[in-house]
């Protein structure tokens, strides 16, 4: 009898704990460090890092300027291109972040 009640309580708790499923989405942040070097940090909204995930720097004419991957510390540094560009953090189809060059300060 006691175990039954315990199971019922556990079941109730499991039902309440199952909140709305929120997909974890990629996040990326770029900023200027020392002179003309841009440093981008990628990750996911659940707090996990993204070492090895593709991060490309692409000109507005779709020419890929830097073809990179995040290092073990989940960052990538590159020289700031002279032309207009955007940073594409690409963790797979539908899991991308785009950062315009105007937003990198």
């Amino acid at each position, binding site marked *: 009898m006691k175990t039954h009640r315990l199971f019922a309580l556990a079941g109730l708790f499991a039902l309440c704990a199952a909140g709305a499923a*929120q*997909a974890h*989405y990629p*996040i990326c942040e770029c900023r200027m460090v020392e002179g003309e070097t841009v440093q981008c940090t990628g990750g996911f*909204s659940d707090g996990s890092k993204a070492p090895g995930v593709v991060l490309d720097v*692409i000109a507005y004419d*779709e020419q890929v300027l830097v073809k990179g991957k995040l290092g073990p510390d989940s960052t990538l540094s590159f020289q700031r291109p002279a032309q207009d560009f*955007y940073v*594409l953090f*690409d963790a797979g*189809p*539908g*899991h*991308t*972040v*785009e950062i315009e060059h105007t937003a990198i300060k």
Partner: protein
Amino acid sequence: MRNDSMRHYWQRGKFHLSALMMLVPLPFLPDYFSPKPIFVPPEIRRDIAVGPFPVTLATYDEAPARMPTGERMKEYRIHIRPADIDRVRGVFLRVGKPRSLRTAGALAFGNPYEREADVTVPDELGGREELWVTMEDWSGGVHQASLPLGEIFGGKR
């Protein structure tokens, strides 16, 4: 004396009273079985043809949510015709025209009859933004369509 007879009636009647309680849900039954929703969520719907696929976009009439990581996100639900479900490989949503297939935006996921996508919304909107829908079919074809974001945004503007 009178108190005694009241108690007598109560003792006799309470069983029948509890049986009567079973009838309480009866007036609610027609609503319960009718196909119309009992609580209609305040939502916005728009029909749009993406290449050969007619789809319906739906979203709640509320402003985008500010995520803990700083960006604003809005949830959209995409209804595809049941006949098209096996033909559609993916549905992507993005505010602004995608530059390439890599930047097609948020990939819709979940129930194939009602896929949902969490779309990143820019912090500042000029009012002329468009919501772009990109659909990829299993033969590799890519179809795109757009509608003004203001039509399917919701919340206070």
